[in-house]
């Protein structure tokens, strides 16, 4: 049975094209089109229904130590209300999921991919057995909205007395927003300034409409999954299931910055130390296609007739007006500036590996 989010009626009213995404009926785009949505978020602001995302809470006397044990980044560095991006690994270095960890006053709040909620929850519960912690899956009770774009602060400000301008990037707070208690964070998946808002599904009411009304003077547009996917690719943010998976390690995925080898033991550490010492065999790289064909997931990457890798994500980038892609290539060819060939419909097309990201003018704070 396909689930709907509490914003379903709003999507219909704004002319959304709905698709089944990880079991939810969600907008892939609205009537202005995907490219228009991307451009408007880079210039103004967009609002997304991301209620499919999962939320898992970890509480108890060992909550900090346990959370730090299951993720690769260092949760001990977080102040209360601060957030970090991380991955969870299997002992063999493969990625269980990528996620955000919110340090809350009384708990740790994990925001995981919608497609992985059940898997993650099961994994965390299994690992939690020998620890004094309580793990709770809150995903079915929480709705999530993202407001993204350079104008998002102006919009959010109109709906709260909270001093939003003083909330730094990757920080959160419990605030009153649109007359409701919500958890609001300055985070996002677009490279723009923006906010993610979590609230109980029973509290949703007309909040979407209130935000739309507040955002009218700032050209706020409802935006779908397709725009979200392009925006994240332009920033070379990984998508689980495409660019990272159980088969890839964070070191291969160029996520070294979220792997803290110096912290206490964590799941996957031994493998990752070895892999770092021996060197990775392949690396995730961003590349720009010569011409306008679009690289897509699964296309082979060549160099001088030899297969050296595979595309994991690709699209047309409206922001830099080029065809862009992300993929794994053999480590020895992974330097920026290198020319690789992508096989697109049995024709090899040149592409240049670049330094991440594709889009460098984002308003992210």
């Amino acid at each position: 049975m396909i689930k709907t989010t509490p914003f379903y009626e709003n999507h219909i009213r704004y002319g959304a094209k709905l698709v089944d995404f990880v079991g939810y009926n969600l907008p892939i785009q609205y009537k202005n089109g995907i490219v228009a949505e991307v451009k408007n978020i880079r210039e103004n602001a967009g609002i997304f229904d991301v209620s499919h995302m999962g939320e898992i809470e970890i509480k108890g006397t060992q909550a900090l130590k346990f959370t730090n044990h299951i993720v690769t980044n260092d949760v001990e560095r977080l102040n209360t209300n601060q957030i970090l991006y991380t991955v969870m690994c299997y002992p063999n270095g493969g990625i269980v999921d990528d996620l955000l960890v919110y340090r809350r006053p009384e708990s740790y709040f994990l925001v995981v991919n919608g497609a992985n909620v059940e898997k993650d929850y099961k994994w965390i519960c299994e690992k939690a057995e020998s620890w004094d912690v309580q793990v709770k899956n809150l995903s079915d009770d929480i709705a999530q909205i993202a407001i993204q774009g350079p104008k998002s602060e102006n919009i959010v400000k109109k709906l709260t007395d909270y001093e939003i301008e003083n909330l730094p990037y990757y920080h959160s707070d419990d605030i009153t927003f649109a007359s409701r208690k919500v958890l609001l964070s300055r985070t996002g998946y677009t490279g723009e300034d923006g906010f993610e808002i979590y609230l109980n599904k029973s509290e949703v009411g007309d909040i979407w409409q209130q935000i739309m009304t507040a955002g009218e003077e700032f050209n706020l547009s409802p935006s779908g999954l397709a725009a979200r996917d392009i925006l994240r690719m332009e920033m070379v943010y990984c998508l689980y299931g495409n660019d990272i998976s159980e088969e890839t390690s964070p070191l291969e995925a160029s996520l070294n910055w979220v792997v803290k080898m110096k912290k206490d033991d964590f799941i996957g550490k031994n493998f990752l130390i070895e892999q770092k010492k021996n060197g990775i065999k392949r690396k995730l790289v961003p590349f720009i296609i010569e011409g306008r064909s679009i690289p897509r997931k699964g296309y082979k990457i060549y160099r001088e007739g030899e297969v050296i890798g595979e595309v994991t994500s690709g699209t047309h980038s409206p922001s830099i007006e080029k065809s862009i892609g992300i993929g794994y290539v053999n480590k020895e060819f992974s330097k920026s500036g290198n020319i690789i060939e992508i096989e697109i419909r049995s024709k090899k097309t040149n592409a240049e590996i670049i330094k991440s990201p594709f889009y460098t003018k984002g308003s992210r704070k």
Partner: protein
Amino acid sequence: MSDSNIPQDLLYTSSHEWIKIENNTMTLGITDFAQNELSDIVYVEYLISEDEDIEKDNPFCTIEAVKTAEDINSPVKGKITGINPKLPDDPALLNKDPYGEGWLLKLELSDDSFKSELMDATQYKKLTEESSH
């Protein structure tokens, strides 16, 4: 989308192309329904050139939309007399004006017997209503 535009004076294929036949020349494009399904079209690559012959069901161009790539096949054998020179620079014409400036192909037909395989507007409308459920 049952509200897509389906001109009465055109013929249609089950793969969502429209066809206009004047004398022995056929003009072909994708329907409003098809452009709406494909969504933002960002690249059109012709696989053939003018004056070439094409066989029935062979692809003559690839349309790249943001989400997907689609080959467009010729529904009939013939000699290519025109490909749309504006599309490589302005692929969005396919979204904006699929029945006008976004036309894809002109073909000289050896005979028009394949006409009997095509749908009229009423039949095509029925098809689009069925495929949007």
